[in-house]
């Protein structure tokens, strides 16, 4: 049996990788993928913790989080699309009309 802590560690690692992706990628779509990665890492954590306690609540929560992730994906990609229409780019660096 694999100790639960390993799953938690894997979750933390994936979460951190997602964070790095958000930081270093210029392409907004890839940035957004990294955020999905972070959410997925949390999902894994929920499942692992639920399993450890023998509680199924964690799985139900993951079910809801997936819906949230899906909704965010749809809306987020829509917003990226709208931004692209205005600026003809998805490069994060070029969105700096608003500053200071």
């Amino acid at each position, binding site marked *: 049996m694999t100790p639960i802590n390993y799953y938690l560690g894997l979750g933390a690692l994936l979460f951190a990788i997602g964070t790095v992706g958000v*930081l270093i990628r210029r392409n907004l779509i890839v940035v957004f993928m990294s955020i999905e990665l972070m959410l997925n890492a949390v999902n894994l954590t929920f499942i692992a913790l639920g399993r450890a306690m023998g509680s199924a609540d964690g799985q139900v929560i993951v079910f809801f989080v997936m819906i949230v992730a899906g909704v965010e994906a749809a809306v987020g990609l829509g917003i990226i699309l709208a931004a692209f229409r205005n600026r003809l780019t998805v490069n*994060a660096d070029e969105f*700096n009309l608003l500053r200071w």
Partner: protein
Amino acid sequence: MIVEFPALNLLLLMPAIGVAFNLFFGYRLGRSAVNTVSVGVVAIAFALSVWATVKLATMPPGSCLQAQLGPWIYAGPLRLDVLLRFDALAAVMSLVVSGVGCLIHIYSCGYMGEDPDFARYFAYMNLFTFSMLLLVLAGNLLLMFVGWEGVGLCSYLLIAFWYDNPLFAFNGRKAFVVNRIGDVGFLLGIFVLFSAFASHGLWTLDFAEMRERAGLISPAIATIACLLLFFGATGKSAQIPLYVWLPDAMVGPTPVSALIHAATMVTAGVYVVARLNFLFALSPSTMEAVATIGTVTAFFAATIALAQSDIKRVLAYSTISQIGYMFLGAGVGAFGAAIFHVVTHAFFKALLFLGAGSVIHALGGEQDMNRMGGLRRRMPLTHAAMLAGTLAISAVPGFSGFFSKDEILQAAYTSGHKTLWLIAVVTAGLTGLYMFRLFFLTFYGKPRLSEERFAEVHEPPFVMAMPLVVLAALSVFGGLIGLPEGVLWGNQIGAFLAPITGRVSAAPAQAVMLLSAITSGVTFIGIILALIGYVVIPTLPERLAAWAQGLYRLLWSKYYVDELYDFLITRPVLFLSSAILGRNVDSLAIDAVVDGTGEAVQGGATAVRRVETGNVQHYVLIYLGGVLLIVGYYLLSALRH
């Protein structure tokens, strides 16, 4: 004895009605309606003050009238009411505020007769009167703070009234900022008092209840609270170190200067100290600080006033100086005398400002005394009124300023503050000197105006002349309410205030006479110096020049007198101020400190602002930094267990 007196609510609300009227209907209904309503509401307020005072005077000493508008902030144990209280101190102040205020409103009808923004002007003036009355009548400290802030706001609005001039707007802002700096102290002082009393179960900040239980407060807490409150008071009352805004505040319309920056608002600080005298009494070191700062400010401002050529700036510095006297009085425990001086000062300072306003009005906005002179012939009435005011402020025996200032100086001497007394006496001489310099430069000597403009100079119209006459009478006779003990009816105002402010033990009669004689003597020396320098000599030079050119040039030239002043007084002050405080007498280092703080704040603002680069990933980085710090913090605390 406490008597319910609902008319107090009306007294407070009258000016508020005026504000609403002016704001909403002012421009629509025209000038005369605005004038009538604005003056009317303040006059009614004055009448109500008189009524209340008469009622109060018939009651046993120590009683008060009160009116409760209702609960204000009731939260948990916190109990703050909208409570107006009319005791002797409030009576004196509200009479002054509404009475002098009413005269200034009347005067304004003439002064602002041409200004297109009359409704806005009178709305501000009424709002100011309202705030000041609230400050004076408030039954608890927080309600007083409401008035306190309102007064600051109005002063800001009125200084910057002629906002077309960017300098004016800047000065308005300067007043606002300096006042806000003082407010930090005031607000923190309220908080300290609040938490100190709350820990003893008193959650009301009510003056009467705080007074009863003042003994519960430890001297250390009292010292902290009083120093903070006094810091706030220096801001509003233009004392060292926060006086810099007042001279610059003179850019507003002159009646504003009279109302706000001379007669009433600047005395708010003195009023607070007098109102909280039971707390200040707990902290002797604070009292010393109050007395010292007051005296030093009085002297310092007087020396600066000597070198000014702008008529309103001289008056501004004289205000600072006179308020220094008031704080000296408060600091040595003579709170009643300080309030008495507030009253007489309101009379003669309002008079002087309105007189100066008439001069400025007549000269089409000219404020430089070097371009005045000889106006006595064209403006005899103003001349007479200004003479009364000048005599009063110089504390010439018999005039109002004499009695109040004398009482303060006596108290300073008998309470053992001999050094402060000495400085104050010297300052009295300087006061005579600079005030008569102003007076002579303006009204005597040869006209330094062009012929045509001089010919156009005229007396003010009736609405402006009438307040001058009334105020002149008050300046001459107003001191009679506070004669020295044993003379005729004695010190009426002192007795009236005594239940609130306490009384200082009077000095023996001979000492009183001697001290008065010394002060008066010094004052007369100052006046005579002014007389010689600005009136007598200008007639001499021609004869003297013929007789002995060298001597003339060496000794009696007016130029040399100025040089003498310059050498004896201005130079040392300049030196002193440049050595200690900064480069220039007028604005000093405090200006630099204030500006410096402003610049530092602005710099910080820019730095903070630059964080927002607009790049979303930089934002993520900042966010992540915050996360790491918080998680790290919890990691450390987890490791500790």
